[in-house]
């Protein structure tokens, strides 16, 4: 009995220590780091409770099994024990108070950006069916790929342009919903250069599963170069690939939505703008919050890279 329990505990400990077991995401931002501290404290307390309760359950099942006694043989007629019951009411209260205290101690480092945030970077994140739109302080915009400098506090203003989405980059910050008509905030500070992945966590419609985001943390210089020129250069391409291609295919060959490659609409910026801004049929108004520059970038890209000429059938 006891060796079996020890083996089970050892196995559980090994499984939980490894990433992919019961351990949370690696932290690459102080808020996730502090969240993980709270997680492990709760894990420690709940593990003890788990072992005590399940251990008592298994022990009693084994020890007080009927073992040939008939159904009419009574167990000991114990009706309760006030002192014992008080003890197992008070102990959970104490444990929960301890957990709550740890949460409140860690909280300032999780929910609010540190005081040093004088030079914080403010970026707007806007959820759309089915992509993320980022706007940088200089007005530059990017789709699905957020570029940030390493080591700087990034404060995100989280909005939605249509339905409820949920913004989450597991290694950088916890979830915050993007709710239409509401402004939410979150923050992170990437501790090393790299690419961090996340995806929309709130069911937002047909393509919920492909609504993914990456955060690219780079040096300050690379970040500057991205927002000053690169973002504009790649805007049209990222708009087509991140927004249109979800339903119309990477080459505009069609998919859930109709084929675009042979549609002369792609060469008419005004009509294209009307459709992407207002939606059409089942198509959401994907560009309802876009700037004219964004529309122009899209029109240019589709005209030169997607449009393959009118089809012979005239479609």
């Amino acid at each position, binding site marked *: 009995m006891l060796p079996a329990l020890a083996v089970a505990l050892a196995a559980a400990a090994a499984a939980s220590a490894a990433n992919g077991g019961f351990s949370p995401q690696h932290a690459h931002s102080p808020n996730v780091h502090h969240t993980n501290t709270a997680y492990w404290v709760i894990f420690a307390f709940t593990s003890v409770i788990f072992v005590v*309760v399940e251990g008592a359950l298994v022990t*009693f099942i084994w020890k007080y099994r009927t073992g040939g006694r008939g159904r009419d043989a009574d167990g000991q007629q114990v009706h*309760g024990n006030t002192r014992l*019951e008080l003890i197992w009411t008070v102990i959970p209260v104490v444990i929960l108070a301890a957990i709550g205290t740890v949460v409140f101690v860690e909280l300032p480092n*999780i929910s609010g950006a540190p005081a040093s945030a004088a030079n914080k970077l403010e970026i707007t994140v806007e959820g759309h069916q089915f992509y993320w739109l980022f706007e940088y302080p200089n007005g530059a915009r990017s789709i699905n790929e957020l570029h940030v400098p390493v080591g700087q506090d990034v404060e995100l203003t989280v909005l939605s342009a249509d*339905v409820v989405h*949920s913004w989450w980059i597991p290694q950088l910050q916890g979830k915050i919903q993007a709710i239409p008509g509401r402004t939410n905030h979150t923050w992170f500070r990437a501790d090393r250069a790299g690419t961090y992945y996340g995806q929309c966590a709130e069911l937002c419609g047909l393509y919920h599963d492909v609504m993914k985001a990456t955060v690219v943390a780079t040096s300050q210089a690379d970040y500057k170069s991205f927002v000053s020129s690169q973002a504009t250069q790649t805007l049209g391409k990222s708009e087509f690939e991140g927004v249109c291609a979800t339903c119309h295919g990477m080459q505009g060959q069609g998919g859930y939505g109709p084929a675009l490659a042979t549609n002369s609409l792609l060469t008419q910026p005004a009509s294209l703008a009307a459709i992407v801004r207002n939606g059409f049929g089942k198509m959401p108004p994907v560009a309802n919050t876009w700037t004219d520059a964004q529309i122009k970038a899209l029109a240019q890209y589709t005209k030169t890279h997607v449009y393959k000429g009118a089809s012979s059938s005239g479609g």
Partner: protein
Amino acid sequence: MAVRSEAAYPVTWRSGRIARWLVTVDHKRIGIMYIATALVFFVGGGVMALLMRAQLATPNEHLLTKNSYNEVLTFHGTSMIFLVVVPILAGFGNYLVPLMIGARDMAFPRLNAFSYWTYLLGGIVLYMSWFASGGTAKAGWWSYPPLSENLPFTSPGHGQDYWILSLHLLSISSLVGAINFIVTIHNMRTRGMTWMRMPLFVWAIETYAILLLVALPAISAGITMLLLDRRGYTHFFLPSQGGNQVLYQHVFWFFGHPEVYIMVLPVFGMISEIIPVFSRKPIFGYTAVAFSTIGIAFFSLLVWAHHMFTTGLGTSLDSFFMISSMIIAVPTGVKIFNWVATLWRGNIQFDTPMLFALGFIALFTMGGLSGIFLAAFPVDWQVNDTYYVVAHFHYVLFGGSMMGMFGGLYYWWPKMFGRLLDERLGRWHFWLTFIGFNLTFLPQHMLGLLGMVRRIYTYDHGGLWEAYNMISSIGSGIMAVGMAVFAVNIVRTQFFRLGRRAANDPWLGDTLEWYTTSPPPEHNFDTVPYVTSARPLRDLRRQLQEQRAT
């Protein structure tokens, strides 16, 4: 003036084999119809679950379409909650409450029948939604607007309207039933049955009924506003027109969280009946168990926004709801400790009802502990809306509610039908379900921690994602086999009449339902003994022994 009576106007058509079920106002028949209907819907919801697990077994799978996946996940959640767990508990309540309190029937038998038929109609309406233009509802069982609104790119068509209509019908059914339970329990207890001598299952049904009365109007209001938004050109939840989406979240979860306890409190009651009988002991701390039920019900009305920690309500509200959610763990813990203590120095019989009850304690404990992570709101920001939450609430609602309910079925089956379900098949049913359940849902904790969010159609990660998903899908198959064994057991016992005949009191129970015949006559009891404790049947057995001895 002539006196109208059944004898003067014999209505023979009512006594046909099927007709007598259609026109019945007998609480026992209505209870059985509730349970049978819920089990049929359980098969439907289970098939949906298996479809989802098949779709998620491997990465980049295309077994279902994206559209049908969203329909299936919405239907699975909605039907398991509203068509299976809540009504099957209403069924147990209907069958057992009058018998346990020594009454002839429910207080309002006709209302009781109305309640059942409204439930059936609500279920049919929900199933009909598959034939609606645009297919059935696909915005998840919370149906958050604007996704559930009638916009061209969200939920056009009538599926969502059917969903709303169905929930309205089911709410009416539950409200009527709740009033009926409360009136019955307050007024129809037999002589000597004070509140503190009442079976713990009846305590649980009383609390379940009160919670239904308090919580259901919230969702009725919420979905009425949603319906008006969809068809009446109002804008309650459309921010572009000045509406407020967060209002829906509050209204929905003000109902949604008590709903969880509505689904689990009566099962706590069943466990509090089964554990003592199969330990041959009284429940450890009757008063604590009874009052912890009320404590849980009270606090369940104050914890709703822990479903909304990622909505951005601010630190003070998040803190309040964290603390209230943690408080609710205390009375829940009391119950678990008291059940375990009931086993102490018992004479534990391992009949199938007890296997399920013990399995319930083991699994529900796990679900309770993962809930503490979710109550700590910064941790919730990480695990909310991931498979961690899916695992958590399945440990509570399947590992808890459904396991307890299976225990209840095995326990009261002989009373309902006069035959015992087969023990060997019962053990197979239990072990397949228990093992399959853990294989299905334990890896989902890890998937959530790896970052797999809920309600995604597919994923493109291999490695551990694929391994855990595959294990989970295999587990769901094992559970399905377990359910098939249960179906065979029912068919074998009931339709082939191979089940052992049950006497009045096959388990040597404690409560009044075992005093009457199995199955009971239409009027339940010829006489009811005066109740002097919470265990009237044991008192009677002891009196008989003493009489024999002298």
